[in-house]
């Protein structure tokens, strides 16, 4: 009697699990392409904000260079990442570098920093953060255009001492009631610029090797 009921119940539950997983598999296969497309668009939108479509003619998402492991700690990356190369008629114009600073007020601040190959900043965006709403979250372009004040800056403009908040004698504004967040962002951007001055020559050489034709060949090899 007990065995019969155990068998009945387990079969019942198993059939439930089976039917629901079928439904889930169907939904998944129906939405998979659409989701991949949405993810791609979201990633691309952030890149396009930094290097607008007038400045380049390649596919920013596909044109990537891996970051050498020795630079991971400078950029704050734990698992490495890719640098996106923007080029105009084959010529590299700018690199978009991912970077993370752990020194925010709460948790990591993930950014992407676009640097022109002449060493000036093309644009910075905070991609993900958990800073205090109303105070530290002004690093987000949705809340304040503070992040645009980095456009055109470089390691020589301002000088090294200028890469700080105004309260500490730097060039960049702090926010009322919040200095930790902007300072973390400023320091990290300066660090990215230093990385770039060290690594940009290698990047240019690598990027020159990876012409669109070569990439197309590589991509077909990976995804036949």
């Amino acid at each position, binding site marked *: 009697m007990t065995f019969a009921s155990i068998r009945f119940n387990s079969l019942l539950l198993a059939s439930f699990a089976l039917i629901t997983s079928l439904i889930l598999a169907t939904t998944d296969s129906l939405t998979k392409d659409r*989701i991949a497309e949405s993810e791609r668009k979201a990633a691309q939108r952030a890149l396009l904000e930094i290097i607008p479509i007038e400045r380049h003619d390649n596919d920013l998402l596909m044109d990537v260079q891996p970051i050498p492991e020795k630079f991971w700690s400078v950029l704050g990356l734990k698992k490495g990442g890719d640098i996106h190369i923007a080029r105009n008629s084959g010529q590299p114009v700018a690199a978009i570098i991912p970077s993370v600073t752990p020194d925010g007020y709460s948790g990591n601040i993930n950014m992407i920093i676009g640097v022109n190959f002449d060493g000036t900043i093309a644009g910075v965006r905070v991609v993900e953060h958990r800073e205090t709403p109303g105070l530290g979250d002004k690093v987000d372009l949705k809340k304040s255009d503070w992040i645009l004040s980095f456009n055109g800056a470089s390691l020589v403009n301002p000088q090294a001492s200028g890469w700080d908040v105004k309260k500490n004698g730097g060039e960049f504004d702090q926010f009322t009631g919040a200095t930790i967040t902007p300072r973390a962002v400023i320091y990290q951007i300066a660090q990215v610029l230093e990385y770039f001055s060290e690594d940009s020559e290698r990047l240019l050489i690598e990027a020159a090797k990876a012409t669109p034709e070569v990439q197309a060949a590589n991509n077909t090899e990976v995804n036949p």
Partner: protein
Amino acid sequence: MSEVTVAEVAKNGLWTNNPALVQLLGLCPLLAVTGTVVNALGLGIATLAVLIGSNTIVSLIRNHVSDAVRLPAFVIIIAAFVTCAELLMKAYTYELYQILGIFIPLIVTNCAILGRAEAFASKQNVGMAAFDGLMMGLGFLAVLVVLGALRELLGQGTVLADMHLLFGASASNWVMRPFGDSYSFLVIILPPGAFLVTGFLIAIKNAIDNANKRRSAAQKTAPVKGAKRIRTTGHIS
């Protein structure tokens, strides 16, 4: 099986037994995502869809599932619906999906849903169960949206901000700023604000209920004045 009318089910879900204000279920997403109307609307609609779906299926299978495995079976059904909702939101409203983040999969743990499956849908016919899901979902959605609207208005001084996340690019200029550009009131945006505003909403609902009770009590006692003679017919046994 107790008989319930459509009107009772509707009134229960929207007011008397409102999942958020009376049963106080699903408070975690309620408090966490109601910073703006669009977030509240997104999570509310997802919860509504899951509630209708799970109530319907639970009612369909109510006579075929033994008591021993009833709860696990319900949980499987609810989890399946939530995962579908998550996939669909990811596919069609990706930015909103990113903002709501963990709270979409967490709909599974919203006790309002399992509670309705167990207390109502497993005892009623399919139509009534689906309708109950709709009404409970609407009741939850309404509270979410009111809360979101109040916190958005009082906290960051906007009305209908970021609606393009849900309604496409044409909705991005719906936003209004009645208090000017620089207004913000931090406490309301932060979690304590969610508790405060929810508390006030519950207080207002209770005040309305009490006022109604007093009025109907007054109406009942009024006619007694004239009739002082009590006639008894029939037996008292």
